[in-house]
């Protein structure tokens, strides 16, 4: 064996979520993710993956940062700061996926924004970028003199319950949540007492993402487990989101890539004359690269940073792994925009060129293979 994994950061410097002791008690293998010591898996990440596709699994995503955006100009601020258009949000609890861009059109982060009313919004941003995001947003507030206050929450936990049986499991545990959430459509949320329940996720399955008081997280997690929900780590979360064709910030996109070359053009709203950061750069430079799916035609596992050769120039795999649902490798690659879906390209896998087919996203949705 060559290299067994070793921790990149001394574990004692890492941050812990309110469920850290729960993960330890469950025997999780822990790993550094964005400065947080998080469960990678609790035994088998492949079994956890299948649990979410077929039944219900739960993830501690408390490392992600909830930021309240409140003030008379909250809406005007978000119209300016986000590439997607919060004017689309008209009913309380409605959610929208968006990037926030820098002046060059690069992605500062991707996030979900929730609407409560015209002066009250909530953002959920990535863990590793949370401080960068808050600094970035506060600088915009100061520079443009928006009358709005950003408040990062440190008193909450977040649990994602995902899978075809996920919602029923939540209703079994939280009896009074059924009435408020049974009719929720995807990308909508409801508040039930201290619990904020959104029909969103990062797996390609149905389910809820739930923000709750940190003090109640361990008990809620234990009750979900008693109801048959399988604890799942970030390993399964990664293979699930890959199959679902969902980007991971820092890997599939960053400050140097635009949403147009990250398969996120659908999240950039230029349908009105709204002025938002990054718009001018996006409109001035048509993308020369695209983010696509790759599936190898032979045996082998695609991984991030492998070089891709195409008839129109080279590209690179941004994320790659093994798909437990498809029982073969899948990857995301950023390649020249002229390459067409269905073309054959070559990826360099351990010194050999492996033929791969270029595919659309997603690979899997709601338990069904789409390629």
């Amino acid at each position, binding site marked *: *064996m060559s290299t067994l994994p070793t921790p990149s950061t001394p574990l004692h410097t890492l941050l812990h979520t309110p469920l850290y002791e729960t993960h330890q008690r469950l025997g999780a293998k822990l790993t550094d993710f964005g400065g947080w010591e998080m469960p990678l898996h609790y035994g088998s990440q492949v079994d956890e993956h299948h649990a979410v596709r077929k039944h219900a699994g739960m993830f501690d995503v408390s490392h992600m940062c909830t930021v309240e955006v409140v003030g008379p100009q909250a809406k005007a601020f978000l119209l300016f700061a986000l590439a997607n258009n919060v004017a689309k949000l008209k009913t309380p609890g409605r959610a929208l996926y968006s990037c926030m861009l820098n002046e060059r059109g690069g992605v500062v982060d991707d996030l979900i924004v929730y609407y409560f009313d015209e002066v009250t919004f909530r953002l959920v941003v990535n863990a590793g970028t949370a401080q960068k995001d808050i600094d970035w947003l506060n600088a915009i507030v100061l520079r443009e003199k928006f009358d709005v206050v950003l408040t990062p929450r440190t008193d909450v936990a977040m649990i994602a319950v995902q899978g075809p049986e996920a919602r029923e499991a939540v209703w079994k545990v939280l009896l009074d949540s059924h009435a408020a959430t049974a009719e929720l459509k995807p990308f909508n949320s409801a508040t039930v007492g201290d619990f904020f329940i959104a029909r969103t996720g990062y797996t390609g399955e149905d389910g809820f993402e739930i923000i709750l008081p940190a003090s109640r997280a361990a008990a809620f997690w234990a009750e979900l487990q008693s109801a048959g929900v399988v604890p799942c780590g970030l390993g399964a979360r990664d293979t699930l989101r890959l199959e679902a064709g969902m980007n991971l910030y820092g890997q599939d996109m960053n400050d140097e890539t635009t949403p147009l070359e990250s398969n996120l053009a659908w999240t950039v709203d230029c349908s009105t004359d709204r002025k938002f950061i990054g718009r001018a750069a996006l409109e001035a430079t048509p993308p020369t690269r695209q983010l696509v799916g790759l599936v190898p035609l032979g045996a082998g*596992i695609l991984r991030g940073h492998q070089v891709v050769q195409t008839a129109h120039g080279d590209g690179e795999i941004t994320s790659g792994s093994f798909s437990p649902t498809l029982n073969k490798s899948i990857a995301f690659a950023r390649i020249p925009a002229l390459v067409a879906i269905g073309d054959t390209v070559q990826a360099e896998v351990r010194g050999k060129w492996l033929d791969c087919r270029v595919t659309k996203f997603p690979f899997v949705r709601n338990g069904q293979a789409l390629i």
Partner: protein
Amino acid sequence: MTIPTNLKYAVSHEWVKAEADGTLTIGITHHAQDALGDLVYIELPAIGKHLKAAQEAVVLESVKAASDAYSPVAGEVIAVNQAVADAPESLNAAPYDAWLFKLKPAADASLDGLLDAAGYAASIGAA
């Protein structure tokens, strides 16, 4: 998991079983499979291939990473375990049964550089 005492070990986490006919059977240890996680792809060497000591012999890919298993001594590959390549998860389940390849050691090959179970346990901090 206890480390079998009838086997020899390389510090690079391969186990070696000396067979009665002088050939060697090689796999990877429980500690190695546990660190790699769920195995999903195994590429075995060609039968007849001559390997040097510490030469890359087998590609092992788990869900999270790729790694190599090395030949513990010089020799010729005389058999490979196709069943484990067809079902990589069987190696996670039973690492000391799921052998990878068999070697006919070179005339000057020696097992003296390998560890016994206690030595291997010490090398992984399990003693």
